[in-house]
């Protein structure tokens, strides 16, 4: 993402937030004081006008909450645009009636038209941002996850630094092989049994503190990552912090990667970190009668241990 895109992205998100709060404010005004509002915009109030305004109020409130809770989701802004159209046509209709104050009504019309333009602009920006991610023009996924491990940073660092034992807790990693000069070869098993492979190089290592790496050209999964090992406060062991950035590959791999990391790339990392904690604190990945099966399975003992993928047991 270029600097410029970053800037404009920030501007749009600020406007979007503003529109969200505007929706909530207007919605509340429409619900709580429809009489005052109708006077303000020049409509002589009748009972059904007030009821209609309250109804619009709930629509505004819904859109506002939607925008603020899912600021990346263009749907909420498009719903505002649809609402704006309804508002505009209501105001135009009111303009034709002789009972109303046409001067005030014109003012209201102009104001709504201005907001509509802003809504359309933001909705288009968000929609474009959403689809360009799909086309792979921006960083597709970033994730930061942390966990506390009840051991000193040195010990946790040296476990992680022993790359070949990473598959003991990384669910989808089949193997890591050191290939010399700070480089390693990784094989991951994706859903559907598709193998993903890549070479990675260590970009920085500070023993007991920090590790970072990135994939090399030709990788099935382009990514960069880092792990920090900070001493946690008050004897709470190590505060471990993983940051990952995935650049989107294309085609087959893209779909597989999406499945691999799911909708939420952080969730898979979090699960891996939980397993790392289990391995370091208890000696191995903890198994339950359900967890040893892929997907949901009743909590009932397995038929045969030999059939199970207990590959997550650490290299001993």
């Amino acid at each position: 993402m270029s600097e410029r895109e970053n800037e404009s992205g920030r501007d749009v998100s600020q406007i979007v937030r503003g529109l969200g709060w505007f929706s909530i404010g207007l919605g509340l005004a429409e619900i709580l004081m429809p009489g005052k509002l109708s006077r303000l915009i020049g409509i002589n109030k009748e009972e059904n006008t007030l009821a209609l305004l309250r109804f619009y109020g709930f629509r505004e409130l819904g859109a506002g909450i939607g925008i603020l809770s899912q600021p990346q989701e263009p749907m909420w802004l498009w719903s505002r645009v649809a609402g704006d159209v309804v508002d505009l046509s209501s105001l135009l209709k009111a303009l034709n009636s002789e009972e109303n104050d046409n001067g005030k009504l014109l003012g209201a019309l102009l104001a709504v038209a201005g907001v509509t333009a802003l809504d359309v602009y933001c909705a288009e920006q968000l929609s474009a941002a959403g689809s360009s991610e799909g086309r792979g023009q921006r960083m597709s996924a970033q994730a930061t996850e942390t966990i506390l491990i009840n051991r000193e940073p040195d010990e946790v660092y040296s476990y992680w630094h022993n790359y070949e034992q990473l598959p003991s807790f990384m669910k989808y990693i089949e193997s890591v092989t050191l290939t010399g000069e700070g480089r390693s070869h990784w094989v991951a098993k994706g859903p559907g049994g598709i193998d993903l492979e890549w070479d990675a190089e260590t970009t920085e290592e500070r023993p007991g503190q920090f590790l970072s790496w990135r994939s090399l050209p030709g990788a099935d999964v382009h990514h960069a990552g880092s792990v920090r090992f900070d001493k946690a406060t008050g004897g709470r062991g190590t505060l471990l912090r993983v940051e990952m950035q995935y650049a989107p590959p294309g085609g087959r791999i893209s779909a597989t990667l999406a499945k691999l990391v799911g909708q939420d790339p952080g969730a898979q990392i979090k699960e891996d970190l939980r397993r790392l904690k289990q391995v370091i604190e208890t000696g191995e990945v903890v198994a339950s009668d359900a967890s040893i099966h892929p997907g949901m399975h009743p909590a009932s003992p397995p038929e045969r241990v030999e059939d199970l993928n207990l590959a997550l047991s650490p290299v001993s």
Partner: protein
Amino acid sequence: MKANCWMGKRDLRIQNVPDPKILNKRDAIVRITATAICGSDLHLYNGMVPTMEAGDVMGHEFMGVVEETGPGVKNLKRGDRVVVPFPIACGGCWSCSHQMYSLCENSNPNAGMAEKLWGHSGAGIFGYSHLTGGFAGGQAEYARVPFADVGPIKVPESLTDEQVLFLSDIFPTGYMGAEMCSIQPGDTIAVWGCGPVGQLAIKSAYLLGAERVIAIDRFPARLRMAHDKGGAETLHYEETDVLEALQEATGGRGPDACIDAVGLEAHTPGIVHAYDRAKQAMMLESDRPIALRQAVMACRNGGTVSVIGVYGGFIDKFPMGSFMNRSLTMRTGQTHVHRYLKPLLERIEKGEIDPSYIITHRLKLDEAPEGFAKFLAKDDDCIKVVLKPH
């Protein structure tokens, strides 16, 4: 082996399932000699706890004889007679090292699932839904016990199964409920619910120095047991205005501490019950906090509300104003059973208490489904069901 399996709401079946196997190095396999139906199992039975799967093996109160140990278990050997705590605890995480065993950070492989509902996860628990890990339970002929080097306690031959079985859950649970009241000389403790946990909370409150214990329920047999065996004064909540009676009994001040041994399926006569049942049915609240609300309102200013009844999700109309303005304290939790095993075993050995007095029904494992139905309906004055798998 035979196991009591949850197949759906109010649908339990004895099924043949594979024998348990060692999956982790620190596992043991226990041949179960006695296992019990817990009041909290009724929440699963009634479909109140999410994430159950058809085929889940029930049961978290059990004991037996060690059949096999994994290579990481050095303190137990085949033939040892042990009671197994219901929470699974690794012994090595920060929570375990602070004796908060039911909050073990490593024993729930489905921690991510629990985090979605509760914000953070607690420990894995035997036979208690997939939110707590998806571990097969102990209403079966055998069970796999993870972290067998940390949890199970060896029990002397001089004590019978029935005397020590409840160390697995309800005795420590009742005891922790009383302990959380920080009982001072002269204190009056009120206990909502005279099921097995309530009965043992009453006993424990006296063991910890309470002057008076007042027990609240609506089933005559349970009130009788609380009175005759527990030594409590009793209130029948359908016949008495509980708040008024507690005020009267304490000179208007209220009990020094209140124990909720009821939990999420509380009952009360009249409109409040209908309100909570309706909200639960519409999924607007998951738990009915009727006893909890009353415990808060009843408690003396500055007192403690100790919650050992099980809650699963969300409650409605919690009297926060009363709670805040009157400086109340709430203490709660799944029981840190491991913490209490030794001291409570000692109390049993010394004869200070014999928890087996609460057992009203002894059935074969095959009869578990009937046992659940009877326990739920309180038929035949059922208070505690113990199952014998062998």
